[in-house]
């Protein structure tokens, strides 16, 4: 037999017991040719393009899923940042566009579509200002649309005006979706150094340098890594890093295969594999649990940041070896509400927002699915975003903030969104004011690191 007994059983164990799945196959579609002076024509072009390219997306993904026995959790679509082709439109028009995107998402049977986005790290065009103003309406009046705004980069610095606007947008969106635990904010990401080929919702969009249409894949598998770390037992750091690398290598290879096969069925180019450990609320599918298995008593204990840094780096190294086209965010995600281990650490009082912020300096994303009290002032949210952007800008990495000031909720309460979004415990936020700093507005200049030419 060409394969060892153990090799075959290892694969079966990963897919059947340890929650290894392809987290998402995301179809990127350019909408740059969909603009027209007439809004109705534009809407029709958008709808027709998405439904044409996307009509078999779910069906193809399901066929590949069955053939290889590897589950694909989500089938999604990302489009060109809406502010770019449709820059001439006004706020109300953008809401209309969001609704037509929503309709197209329903038609092709996907749960989320990303790309209601703007890139404003260096300043705003008129259309971008209008789009940002429209976000609270667009996200509260649609079900399936996700939005992201890039407000900072290592090359451009931090656009403090944009951060202040986004803090207001977040507050307004929280109020507009207060009946469902301010769920609108779970569909909105504020970025620094956003990657243009990230397949993971809510931050996905189809970058302007991408081809007409492309298929990107996001892999997952905290459960697989957790079991491998547990099995490695009491070994030293080098051995542990090696164990993580070997495991991540295998799941990346499977991800690349699945991505290629889905792209082949579509007859379109394959883009990238995003080698990420993305947790779910399912038991055992948790980054928090991996950190504990690595040896810290709970997430938040001194040593947590170092453990996460090693985990993140090992995953990246393995991914680079396993795939010729690694992209997106690629690393370990540390969302709070989507990870049982993280939720428990917050509820036990072991993990504070400040420690979480430190952890984001070494993980692949940032403050993700963090619930804070509903009465947190906009200036404080702006301060939190600015801190996160500073980490991303100085370290030349992507950082993001997906923060939910749950309307009417206080510290100690929890809101259960159900599904992959999980249950968000409300975390305490510092009472100290950021107002004097953030209200200065303007821009934090790009760091010396930006001058690499």
């Amino acid at each position: 037999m060409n394969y060892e007994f153990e090799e075959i059983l290892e694969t079966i164990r990963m897919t059947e017991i340890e929650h290894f799945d392809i987290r998402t196959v995301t179809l990127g579609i350019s909408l740059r040719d969909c603009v027209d002076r007439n809004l109705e024509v534009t809407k029709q072009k958008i709808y027709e393009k998405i439904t044409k390219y996307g009509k078999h997306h779910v069906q193809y993904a399901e066929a590949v899923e069955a053939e290889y026995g590897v589950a694909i959790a989500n089938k999604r679509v990302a489009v060109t940042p809406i502010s770019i082709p449709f820059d001439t439109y006004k706020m109300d028009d953008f809401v209309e566009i969001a609704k037509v995107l929503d309709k197209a998402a329903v038609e092709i049977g996907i749960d989320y579509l990303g790309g209601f986005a703007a890139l404003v790290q260096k300043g705003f065009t008129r259309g971008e200002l209008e789009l940002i103003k429209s976000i609270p309406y667009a996200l509260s009046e649609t079900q399936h649309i996700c939005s992201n705004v890039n407000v900072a980069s290592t090359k451009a610095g931090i656009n403090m005006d944009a951060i202040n606007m986004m803090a207001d947008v977040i507050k307004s969106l929280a109020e507009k979706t207060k009946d469902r635990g301010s769920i609108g904010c779970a569909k909105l990401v504020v970025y620094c150094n956003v990657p243009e080929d990230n397949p993971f919702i809510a931050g996905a969009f189809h970058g302007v340098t991408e081809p007409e249409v492309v298929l990107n894949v996001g892999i997952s598998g905290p459960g697989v890594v957790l079991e491998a770390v547990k099995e490695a037992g009491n070994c030293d750091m080098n051995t542990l890093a090696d164990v993580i690398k070997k495991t991540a290598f295998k799941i990346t290879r499977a991800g690349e295969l699945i991505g290629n096969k889905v792209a082949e069925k579509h007859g379109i180019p394959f883009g990238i594999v995003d080698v990420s450990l993305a947790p779910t609320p399912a038991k055992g599918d948790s980054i928090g649990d991996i950190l504990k298995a690595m040896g810290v008593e709970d997430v938040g204990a001194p040593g947590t940041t170092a453990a996460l840094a090693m985990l993140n780096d090992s995953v990246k190294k393995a991914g680079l070896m396993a795939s010729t086209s690694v992209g997106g965010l690629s690393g370990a995600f540390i969302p709070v509400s989507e990870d049982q281990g993280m939720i428990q650490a917050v509820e036990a009082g072991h993990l504070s927002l400040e420690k979480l912020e430190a952890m984001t300096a070494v993980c692949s994303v940032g403050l993700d699915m963090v619930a804070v009290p509903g009465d947190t002032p906009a200036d404080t949210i702006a301060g939190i975003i600015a801190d996160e952007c500073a980490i991303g800008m100085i370290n030349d990495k992507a950082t993001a903030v997906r923060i939910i000031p749950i309307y009417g909720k206080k510290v100690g309460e929890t809101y259960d969104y159900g599904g992959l979004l999980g249950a968000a415990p409300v975390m305490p936020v510092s009472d100290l004011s950021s107002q004097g700093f953030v209200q200065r507005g303007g821009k934090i200049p790009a760091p010396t690191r930006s001058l690499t030419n």
Partner: protein
Amino acid sequence: MRINEEEIRKLTLQAIEELGDKATPDLVKQVVEKSVTNLGKIPEGNDSADFSSGRIILTSFGINHPGIIAGITTSLSEHSVDIRDLSQKILGEFYTMIMIIDISNSPNDLREIQEAMNAVSEKLKVKIYLQHEDVFRYMHRI
């Protein structure tokens, strides 16, 4: 894809320019019509995209009892599936069996064979998984 007047005008102008002196109303019409048909085209999906081979790995495990392999192989032979390799291990009351099968000569596709195996799996009260060989090759071979 619906094409508006403005775009047709643009195409016409472009056609006239490209044809230069040779432009006649009929010829321009022909060129524009051709471009319009091509414009709306998107890559055709390829649902029957073929695999590199028809080799499938069948894994079965559960509590051992007589007739498991017989049950599985009978159904496989009914679908004209070729068995290329087989190995099994028994540990106490549990058994694990791995088969490499080739379905390229079968009139049925993988999905139909999977459905047949699901029926066998329920009847024999054991687990049966069928996965294309590539997933193992990608994960365990460089």
